């Protein structure tokens, strides 16, 4: 991918705001999502599309509603209403089912333990999509459609007929900046850092707030943790 990140051009205050906590020598990058803070605004999902130039109809990052519909709370038997959100993108599993099944090793564990894609090697068989229990991989079914003319992202566009997915904004990590979904969250609900460092903010929060992982029983060992709300959130 072309290294075209304009981080250098940012005003110092903005740069400082998105700065990555210094990782260890052998980092395991991961994320905590504070569901107490998430208000379901989809800012992280939309900025992901523009940061990574994700074409129309494809989303690397979505915000699912734990309710009856996108904007409808769940009603319990006693009539009380409850609404919460599950921001969902690649979980960057340590025991990733997708990397195991890829016939050509086009999806693999790369730097920082991230699950990455080699767009030039992918044969487009979509076996990784079959294997992924989280439904976070997206395929280039046709030529990319964009709302604006030309490419808009900070990374190279992906070719038709190949798979693509969340990279945790690897291009930003190279500039010591957190992923775009993290700095852009208006509620500060996403915390990114090095899980290999027990004193990092993400590790501390996962420990103290009893971070849970999605579909834990499948043994995929995700590196994204969900922090449960500490107070009752129903009406």
């Amino acid at each position: 991918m072309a290294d075209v990140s304009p981080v250098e051009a940012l005003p110092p205050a903005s740069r400082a705001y998105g700065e990555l906590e210094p990782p260890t020598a052998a980092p395991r990058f991961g994320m905590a999502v504070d569901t107490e803070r998430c208000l379901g605004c989809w800012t992280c999902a939309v900025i992901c599309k523009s940061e990574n130039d994700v074409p129309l109809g494809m989303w690397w990052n979505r915000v699912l509603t734990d309710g009856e519909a996108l904007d409808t709370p769940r009603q319990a038997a006693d009539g009380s209403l409850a609404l919460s959100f599950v921001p969902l993108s690649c979980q960057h599993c340590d025991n990733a089912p997708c990397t195991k099944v890829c016939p050509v090793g086009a999806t693999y564990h790369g730097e920082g333990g991230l699950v990455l894609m080699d767009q030039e090697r992918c044969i487009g068989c979509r076996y990784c999509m079959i294997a992924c229990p989280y439904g976070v991989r997206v395929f280039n079914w046709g030529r990319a459609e964009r709302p604006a003319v030309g490419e808009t992202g900070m990374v190279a566009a992906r070719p038709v007929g190949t798979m693509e997915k969340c990279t945790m904004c690897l291009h930003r990590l190279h500039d010591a900046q957190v992923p775009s979904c993290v700095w852009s969250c208006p509620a500060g609900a996403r915390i990114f850092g090095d899980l290999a460092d027990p004193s990092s903010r993400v590790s501390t929060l996962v420990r103290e707030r009893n971070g849970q992982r999605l579909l834990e029983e499948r043994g995929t060992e995700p590196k994204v943790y969900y922090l449960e709300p500490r107070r009752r959130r129903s009406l």
Partner: protein
Amino acid sequence: MSAPALPRPTGRAMGPARPRVDPRLAAWLATLIALMAAGGGAWLYQQWNGLRVTNMRNTFMWGNYILFFMFFVGLSAGGLIVASSGRLFGATRFKPIVRVAVLEATVAITLAGTFIVPDLGRPERLLHIFLFANLTSPMVWDVTIVLLYLGLSATYVWLYTRADLAGRGSPLALGTGTSERALRRDDRLKGALAWVALPAAILLHSITAWIFGLQIGRTFWYTAVMAPMFIASALVSGLALVILLALAVRWAGRLRFDDGLVPYLGGLLAVFIASEAFLLFAELLTAAYPGAPAEGQAVTRLLAGPYLVPFLGETAFGLLLPFALLASARLRRYPAVVALAAGIAVVGIFVHRLNLLLNALSVPTIALPPGLSIGVGQAGSVGLPGAAFATSYWYLPSPVEWLVVGGVLALGAFLFTVAAWYLPLQEPDHH
């Protein structure tokens, strides 16, 4: 002890079938060529526009092509099982149809491999599977065994027909003769091949099952019964197709066998159908009994949800009906009844494979609203709520997918017809 004299190839049925191509055959072949051209055109169209011209989406990522791939892997079972069990278990009654059976296996496995190609987003990178093979991928195991199986089946066809080809001076005999010694060597080779072919057949169906059955992300597939069930369904559809093709080739005058063979094959097919039904029942009971949500839901969808009709198509129509027809010793005396039952069984196994895909893929593991992004922009409806996402997806193949499948099927019919017309299919009789 001296070996008994082997039958020498006779002059019967050694030359090409007819001195001139008969007009019906020519019309049939022309139709197939037209279908192949249409399929090839549809595939090029798909290559130009991407897989969006199919109805597969992020919400349903494997469709018609993989369905037919699984189905044809299963169909290829018939040949090598007939050929190798004749050798290994002394099932000599198979002998008259052994050449048709191995030819069927060769064509079916060729088609199975061919169906992979249009499913790929980048078919021009197919060789990456060998250049960058990731050995933990069941797909790499499967490509290996499919190629091995293709090699074995083609070798079988050649070995069984070679002496007769040599007898008529065909270049396909590759310079081998018809001496007693050559025939003895063939016989030894056939015996040796059977020892490799039977395990290869078992592996082929198991590995194809493991493409699906090892995926912890898909609870409906994640079951140890997957491989045995694939073997059982392969035996059903493979033998059923061999029966149909043997009867067709006999009807076309290219093969003689007496009617006594038909009830024997029909009875065997009934046993295969019963084992498939048993495994299916064992799987559903195990999944449904605890009432646990993950497995339970998939089973509920089969028994009470939108999948009830295809599920009944698989069980009542595809398994019970042919079993009932074939289990009766009186009914299976009639070749027409056996052919009907075999035809229904082939369709039933197809529906079985369809259910495997539909039920596992149409609802995502995390099915919270708004669901998965479809994967293509909705022309003219950008911004409409829900247009780009779905929590469930009812997949039906697009016309392009049907044209491509039709083209590959026509290729199979073409290969089989030409081979059945040219190759000597009659096994010499024992005296």
